[in-house]
């Protein structure tokens, strides 16, 4: 009895061990030692600014996928980018510094309150209650969830809306992830234009509640010569890379076309007057 129990258990254990030993050989997955070296090079902040779940995820992607550029790490910046470029043998292009940008100008738009919110002072909580106390369902709630999240103290609340200090912002995107209303967006620091509204509402619903809300007339989409502006998921989106690549020759056509004046020059500059004489296109306008 004792013998048989010992033999059975030992036999089973031996069998399992043998199975696992064989399996570890048969199912061995070759892991690239480069991945480990790349993840050592990365800052290890796991901020997710690159768009991957963590530094490990980005290391995997940048080693295995030739299409992934080595300059996605915003925390490491140019130094990490060149180190990754050397490790993976990829061309390191210029690191594009990003900044957070608030897609809402509810004070200028005079967005009214639907009710007085007296709950927990957090955007997440306020947004969970009847989609926030503002008339607009896409406005900045101004309780500063992003401010708490920011690691460089580049955000503060002013007149009930988040304000980004673009010179100190490192563009890690932590605030973008925490914003429950998707108001913040990452754009290149040298972006030329940016849209200051993120609403998905339709024409009347927008004009009723906000003076500077996007009415999705798509004039900017039609007028952009670079086709950098698209209507995506019910919002106007600017492909900043395409816009910057095209350069200044469009004379900021989108900002001029916008009837609500919400496609603004990034950096707070005023739209220069239209260069009327500078349009050498008589052939196109034959009367």
């Amino acid at each position, binding site marked *: 009895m004792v013998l048989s129990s010992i033999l059975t*258990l030992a036999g089973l254990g031996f069998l399992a061990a043998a199975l696992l030993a064989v399996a570890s050989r048969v199912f061995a997955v070759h892991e690239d030692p480069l991945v480990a070296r790349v993840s050592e090079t990365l800052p290890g902040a796991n901020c997710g600014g690159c768009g991957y779940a963590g530094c490990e995820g980005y290391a995997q992607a940048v080693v295995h996928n030739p299409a992934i550029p080595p300059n996605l790490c915003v925390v490491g910046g140019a130094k990490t980018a060149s180190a990754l470029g050397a490790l993976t043998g990829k061309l390191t292009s210029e690191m594009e510094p990003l900044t957070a940008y608030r897609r809402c100008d509810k004070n200028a738009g005079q967005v009214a309150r639907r009710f007085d919110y007296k709950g927990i002072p957090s955007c997440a909580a306020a947004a969970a209650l009847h989609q926030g106390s503002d008339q607009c369902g896409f406005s900045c709630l101004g309780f500063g969830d992003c401010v708490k999240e920011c690691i460089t103290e580049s955000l503060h609340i002013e007149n009930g809306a988040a304000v980004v200090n673009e010179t100190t912002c490192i563009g890690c995107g932590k605030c973008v992830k925490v914003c429950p209303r998707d108001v913040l967006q990452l754009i290149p620091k040298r972006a030329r234009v940016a849209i200051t509204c993120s609403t998905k509402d339709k024409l009347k619903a927008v004009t009723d509640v906000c003076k500077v809300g996007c009415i999705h007339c798509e004039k900017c989409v039609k007028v952009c010569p670079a086709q950098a502006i698209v209507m995506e998921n019910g919002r106007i989106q600017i492909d900043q890379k395409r816009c910057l690549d095209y350069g200044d020759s469009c004379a900021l056509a989108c900002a001029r076309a916008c009837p609500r004046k919400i496609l603004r020059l990034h950096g707070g500059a005023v739209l220069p007057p239209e260069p009327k004489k500078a349009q050498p296109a008589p052939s196109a306008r034959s009367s």
Partner: protein
Amino acid sequence: MSVFEVFISAIFVNNIVLAQNLGNCPYLGCSRERGVALGMGTAVVFVTVMATLCTWLVQKYLLEPVHLEYLQTLVFILIIASLVQFVEMFLKKAIPPLYASLGIFLPLITTNCCVLGVTLLVQREDYGLMMALLYAFATGAGFLLALLLMAGVRERLEVCRVPKAMAGTPIALIMAGIMSLSFMAFKGMV
């Protein structure tokens, strides 16, 4: 009991977590976010079914013929542990996307009493193989349900004003208790 009754009872009436209090560790540990809860729950369903299949066969064709039923617990632990290891290796090689989503949970399951509990309960109830597999699947689904519900509640709890002494695990335990009580309402069903 009919097939349907076993199914319903395993998910709701005798929910493995809320009524039988097995697998409480992942129930509290992996229920902070819904995504994690879903991954863990799916992994438990998968492993429970696999483990039930293996242990049922071992019980019927090895332990019972040599009258070693008293070694059940020991042998089942051994089998589940090596099975989970094997499955992990297999997934890593054969189905990398599935491994990426379930991979980190599989080692956690090795010591999950929910899985061991199901394999032992199957033997106690003396189910046939098909019935055992169905029971294992339903129990895993019940675990997944409890985990998802808890994750949903805890995501809301994050933005609630909880007294300082209660914040974190204490309030989670209270929520677990209340949820368990509310599942008592299913008792009359089967």
